[in-house]
């Protein structure tokens, strides 16, 4: 009776012994492979780290401004040259007291305004991406999976939206929108409109990609198998197709966010963003157009803020796309 017991123990030790080498050829899930690849892509990781830092900075903007700056709407006329309306100090009035200088005319702390601007930028970019992704995935899958007239109708709508002069249409739309809507006022209304409009015009791009994917996925054997087991459309859509769409949707989401940041900034630049005195990057650049000759620093700070943010998202998105690409090595 002892022998078999011993045998089992031996077998167990043998198993634990080979566990090391066995691990090397252990099956890795697609997510695991992607993560391993992403970990090796230093540039993408740097982009991701900057994105994370920016998000944290935006969340803790009140704390950071109280530690290193001044309230974003506080005027500091003592910092402004009364004759020229530009900051007294060199480089836009940069000093230890005003890390990124002060804005012309009012002398408000640019550091605080850029931080608070990041909040507007990121909230609008993320939420409008959520709008685009929800509509795009829903309608894209429906078009690709059901085909026929549903596909024809949805594809037509996508063509129509892509033919729309978006930027013009959006600024015009924002200008005719009321100042209070559905219980929201001021900045809230403008942000809600920006999110809806940017999100709405963004969905056809993702809709097209998802439609193409769904079109090819529905012909695959596992869908056939699921059907033959008696699965209904809802089950196939949610449990069979959707999980296969996660990778492209994820990649597209990280790449649509920087586009949205640029869109929000462009709309603010054209005066269709949040209303002053609420700070936003585009609006700061729009102010800078009138004064860049006398105070070039004021244009550089928000410009670089946009550049760094968008670049970081793009780097991370590119890396993620490469990591999730099944054809990649």
């Amino acid at each position, binding site marked *: 009776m002892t022998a078999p017991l011993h045998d089992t123990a031996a077998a167990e030790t043998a198993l634990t012994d080979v566990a090391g080498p066995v691990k090397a050829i252990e099956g890795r899930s697609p997510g695991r492979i992607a993560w391993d690849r992403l970990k090796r892509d230093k540039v993408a990781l740097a982009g991701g780290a900057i994105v994370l830092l920016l998000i944290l900075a935006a969340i803790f903007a009140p704390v950071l401004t109280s530690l290193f700056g001044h309230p974003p709407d506080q005027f500091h006329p003592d910092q402004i040259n009364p004759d020229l309306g530009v900051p007294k100090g060199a480089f836009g009035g940069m000093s230890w007291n005003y890390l990124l200088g002060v804005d012309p005319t009012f002398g408000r702390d640019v550091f605080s305004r850029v931080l608070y601007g990041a909040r507007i930028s990121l909230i609008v970019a993320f939420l409008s991406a959520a709008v685009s992704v929800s509509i795009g995935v829903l309608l894209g899958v429906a078009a690709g999976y059901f085909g026929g007239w549903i596909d024809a109708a949805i594809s037509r709508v996508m*063509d*129509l939206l*892509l*033919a*729309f*002069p978006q*930027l*013009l*249409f959006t*600024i*015009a*739309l924002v*200008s*005719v*929108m*009321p100042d209070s809507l559905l219980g929201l006022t001021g900045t809230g209304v403008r942000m809600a409109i920006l999110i809806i409009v940017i999100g709405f015009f963004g969905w056809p791009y993702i809709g097209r990609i998802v439609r193409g994917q769904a079109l090819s996925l529905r012909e695959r054997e596992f869908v056939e198998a699921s059907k033959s087991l008696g699965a209904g459309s809802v089950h196939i859509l949610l449990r069979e197709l959707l999980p296969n769409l996660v990778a492209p949707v994820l990649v597209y989401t990280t790449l649509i966010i*920087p586009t949205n940041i*640029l869109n929000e*900034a*462009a709309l603010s*630049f*054209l*005066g*269709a963003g949040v209303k002053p005195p609420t700070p936003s990057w*585009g609006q700061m*650049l*729009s102010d*800078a*157009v009138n004064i*860049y*000759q006398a105070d*070039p620093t004021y*244009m*550089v700070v*928000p*410009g670089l803020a*946009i*550049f760094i943010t*968008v*670049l970081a998202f*793009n*780097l991370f998105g*590119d890396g993620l796309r490469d990591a999730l690409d099944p054809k990649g090595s």
Partner: protein
Amino acid sequence: MLVYLIRRLVNVAVLLLVVSAITFGIFFMVPKLTGSDPALLYVGKIADKAAVEGIRHKMGLDKSIAEQYFLFLKGLFVGRDYSQGTDVTHCSAPCFGYSFKTEQEVWPLLLDRLPVTLSLASGASVIWLVVGTGTGIVSALRRRSVLDRATMVTALAGVSLPIYFTGLLALSIFVNTLGWLPNNYVNFTDDPVEWARNLILPWITLAFLYAATYARLTRATLLEVLGEDYIRTARAKGLKENKVIGKHALRSTMTPILTVFGLDIGALIGGAVLTEKTFDLRGLGYEAVQAISQSDLPVILGVTLFAAFFVIMANLVVDLLYAVVDPRVRLG
């Protein structure tokens, strides 16, 4: 081919009709819902009631939205009359109505602005097409070389930069600090040399932005095409490498680039809003921003439709060109 063309043209007409209906509906209905009065915008707030009613009747603003839209369409195709008592103003086709602010016809205004935008778009598009696809091709053929890496880093930076920032930087450096270039638009017909000299900065700034996208797209597409079987076949049958690239690979690489180019050029002619605002070029986009800030609905509607027209037409031209460029595409 002819059947295809006719079908596409009908499609274009329907698309434009829908765009115009939506735009018209939104811009003439939303003010109504929010309580601002288009008639008041024409005459100003101090006008007396009779004057407001007079203008309302003359411009047809007292009619229902559907009727107004129909009159607008009629104006586009056959022109329309605005009458106030015995005073009749005729607006000949294509009649986009009158500006609320200047009371000038919208159509001549659009035609007046178009050359500026065309000048900007034409010059910039030539630069970005040559530079963008050129560097993209070189990058793909010399993959992983220093040149490839440098190009791709620059291109990624390019797609992450907003034009109103690079534009301001360029103005600040080349116009204000160094004083190398002027920045006042001159008509091509007046002085072609000055026209180009004044537009060089906006051209390059705009082209840089687009060239970045094109370089990335060209590189990615060409790399994908080079992995196709027919390229291997072409090499296997002993074709010279530059013939493989030039005749086989580049042809299908051009298809997606053409698509994007068509959309971009259409959108740009429809209004290079940001570039025009940054460089103070009084083109269609500039006019649109101006009109929007003054709630000048007829001008907004006019520019939006005009822009949509260019985008849709550009799409059509691209689809027709497909058949020429890509031997796999047959129209029918």
